[in-house]
């Protein structure tokens, strides 16, 4: 018989090598199991959804912008004549919005905050003449400055009617001296003017000319109609695009707006600008043309959003009525 073992008892301790091998393989398998355990964890990690908090931060921003825009529009519609009052109303409204959003987001485990101390509320003025009358101040001044220190213009639309009040001429000097005009002047002394009169030669009922600085007036538009709806922001007259109405190349901000020869034309206007330096004594109370309304032009809001997975800070500018 083969005599492998030392003791030699029949078969009782044969194959010890195989036993040892089996043990070693078993231990190795245990290590393999631990390894595959991490693989399972990884698969689980991979199946978790992508992080949604980026979208939530943008949603918060949208909520605040929408809320504050609605607030500004509502307060502007109140028709305040005091800049401090409208400023304070908007500020109190923003505080309310902040309190409510903070509370509702906190319920979901997110901290949101509008940084009130760094918030910027910019006042503006809306000047309106809603009934058809001469372009004069409330005390009858025909040459008067409506507002100074204009830094931005949101809307500037005028409707001048072609009635007998318009100066009938086509001579440049008469236009420059006697026709109704709107003058924009900046702090460097640059001037830009738009005149409205009736063209005598062509027989058109209403004509518009533009004069830059000390040059002579150039007619840019004329028509045989009832009125001219001039929009100095969109650069249109009666919805036709007129590129010569682009004054921003010649006038820098801040600038002032003045009417001259206001008794030589009748019409309405609606001007909204970023400035609080209106000549209050030249206007009537709200609703009685011509009048001005103290508004909030825009608000700069620093926002803070913090969730367990995302910290996000940004400053948004809320300016309702402005194109994107």
């Amino acid at each position, binding site marked *: 018989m083969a005599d492998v073992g030392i003791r030699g008892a029949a078969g009782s301790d044969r194959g010890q090598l195989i036993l040892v091998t089996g043990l*070693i393989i078993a231990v*190795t398998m245990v*290590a393999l199991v631990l*390894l*595959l355990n991490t693989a399972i964890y990884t698969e689980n990690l991979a199946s978790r959804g992508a992080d949604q908090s980026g979208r939530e931060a943008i949603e918060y921003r949208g909520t605040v912008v929408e809320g504050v825009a609605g607030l500004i529009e509502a307060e502007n519609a109140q028709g305040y004549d005091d800049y401090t009052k409208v400023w304070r109303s908007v500020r109190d409204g923003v505080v309310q919005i902040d309190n409510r959003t903070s509370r509702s987001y906190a319920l979901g485990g997110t901290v949101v905050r509008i940084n009130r101390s760094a918030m910027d509320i910019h006042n503006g003025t809306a000047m309106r003449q809603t009934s058809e009358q001469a372009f004069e101040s409330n005390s009858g001044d025909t040459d008067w400055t409506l507002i100074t220190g204009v830094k931005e213009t949101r809307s500037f639309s005028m409707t001048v009617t072609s009635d007998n009040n318009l100066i009938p001429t086509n001579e440049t000097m008469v236009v420059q001296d006697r026709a109704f005009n709107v003058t924009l002047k900046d702090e460097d002394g640059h001037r830009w003017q738009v005149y409205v009169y009736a063209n005598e030669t062509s027989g058109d009922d209403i004509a518009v000319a533009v004069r830059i600085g000390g040059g002579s007036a150039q007619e840019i538009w004329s028509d045989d109609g009832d009125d001219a709806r001039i929009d100095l922001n969109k650069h249109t007259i009666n919805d036709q695009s007129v590129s010569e109405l682009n004054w921003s190349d010649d006038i820098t901000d801040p600038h002032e707006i003045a009417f001259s020869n206001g008794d030589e034309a009748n019409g309405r206007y609606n001007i909204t600008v970023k400035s609080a330096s209106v000549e209050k004594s030249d206007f009537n109370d709200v609703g009685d043309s011509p009048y001005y309304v103290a508004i909030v032009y825009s608000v700069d809001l620093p926002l803070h959003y913090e969730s367990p997975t995302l910290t*996000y800070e940004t400053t948004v500018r809320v300016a309702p009525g402005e194109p994107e």
Partner: protein
Amino acid sequence: MTDRGVSVALSYVLTLAITTLLISGLLFATANVVGDRQESVTRTELQVVGERVSASLMTADRLVQSGASTVIVEVPAPQRVAGEGYSIALNATGGEVVLSTGDPAVVVRVPFRNETVVATSEANGGDVEIVFADDGELEVRSA
């Protein structure tokens, strides 16, 4: 009578030798299997972590592009991958997240798209955060 001409020592040696050969072959194969598994698991895990970092980076990029002054995105990640420590790096020029382990040496690259400038930066494995830094660049940092 059946074992005439049989040397005891030779039988002994032969048995041992063959058994040892077989056993060592078995052990060698097993060790190989575990080694292979480890490398494959490491690769898969690094790929998964890399995809998460890449997705978070692109989220941060989108937030910055929509106008943000500060963005910090947390990315939870395991401390070790298949028992090995690893590192997460951002490669700005190649536009990819590079994850690598020491032993076995595995390198995984996950591409990303960005509009904001990304700074080439590196962090140890584990929870990291993507930060829109003061210098206007996105970088990865240990949380």
